[in-house]
């Protein structure tokens, strides 16, 4: 277990991301790609995700303002969004994306709107959690190669 209190807190935060179902195994894959050459890789990817997906969210919002709904377009946008969310391991967001797409496929406009509201909530919650997590991670600093977790 980590002796350093910041690292211990970091480990706890990380564990809760998994326990609360916010992230899945894919997030671990991201962590495995992080190395000394790229010590902030995970944060970079997550930051890139929020930047890139903001664009798609906006597209969907605009598309939902046009009636009748263009379900094909909405589904196409969500396919993109789901792909990115899946790639970073954003589990709840991904699940909500799937629901949205199902509503698109069945032409359920009300369902789309409800699902999208829920999705934006999860998306925002996760962003906050990631923000706190990476802030603490930066405070914790790089892991010394000599140290071994007890």
């Amino acid at each position, binding site marked *: 277990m980590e002796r350093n209190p910041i690292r211990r807190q970091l480990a706890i935060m990380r*564990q809760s991301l998994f326990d609360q179902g916010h992230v899945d195994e*894919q997030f671990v894959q*991201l*962590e*495995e*790609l992080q190395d000394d050459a790229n010590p902030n890789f995970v*944060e970079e990817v997550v930051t890139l995700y929020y930047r890139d997906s903001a664009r798609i969210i906006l597209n969907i919002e605009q598309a939902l303002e046009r009636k009748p709904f263009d379900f094909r377009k909405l589904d196409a946008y969500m396919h993109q969004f*789901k792909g990115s969310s899946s*790639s970073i391991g954003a589990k709840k967001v991904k699940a909500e994306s799937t629901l949205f797409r199902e509503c698109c496929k069945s032409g359920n406009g009300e369902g789309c709107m409800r699902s999208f509201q829920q999705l934006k909530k999860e998306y925002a919650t996760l962003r906050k959690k990631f923000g706190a997590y990476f802030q603490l991670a930066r405070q914790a600093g790089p892991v010394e190669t000599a140290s071994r977790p007890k």
Partner: protein
Amino acid sequence: MELMKSSDNIIQDRTQQQHKQEPEMQAQEGQQEQGHHFHVLAVDDSVIDRKLLEKLLKVSSYQVTCVDSGDKALEYLGLLNNLDSDSTASSSSSSSSSSNSSSCSQSSQREGLKVNLIMTDFCMPGMSGYDLLKRLKGSSWKDVPVVVMSSENVPSRISIRCLEGGAEEFMLKPLQLSDLEKIEAYLLKSLHLSCTNIDKDDDDNNADHNSDNNNDKVVNNDSNIDKGNNSTSMNNNFSKRKALSSEDTESRRPKIKGLAVAI
């Protein structure tokens, strides 16, 4: 989950030592050097997936070039130049009166560009991964293995269509480090193909290794069945694996890391 970093530092140190011993293999980002590294061209419209794929491949010591569309991929490979007549292409094609379409594309290929594997997303705006696959297989780059990726379980008719179109495999995104072992197999296949052109005795040498590789084939075929993979081509790939020296094999292994501390 325990956060362990110590073991993968050892792996990384060893990798760094290997790199130091081979000075011509300086890791220079984005350069296409005729080095010992395999060069992968990755095509994906998603910036996230490009970043991930690039890192996955680089971590496994491959050279990577990423483009965001099929058109950009064709442009990179010099295949779009067939239509425009820029000075270099037209001068070399006009000098050979018996030029057919394949030699035209040869002359417009970038000087010394080496690509060992092309990985493309299936679902892209504009040119789809399938369209790109067909274009590639009808070009001078047809011998380069192509892997198609998709972010969801596509109907088997689509994955089969890609395989029939010449793709080596249809892989599910997001790709993981463990998926790179399959990619290694396709890269080795491309290496063997280029060796075969030079020296046909390679096949005789590999015959002895086939029996050793049966276990590998079984393990990998199981994991590929639900992806609609053509298992017979995988068999050929694995028989070629041991043609490389063990030194090369070590540097090709994906660097499986322990759980890293997110910093």
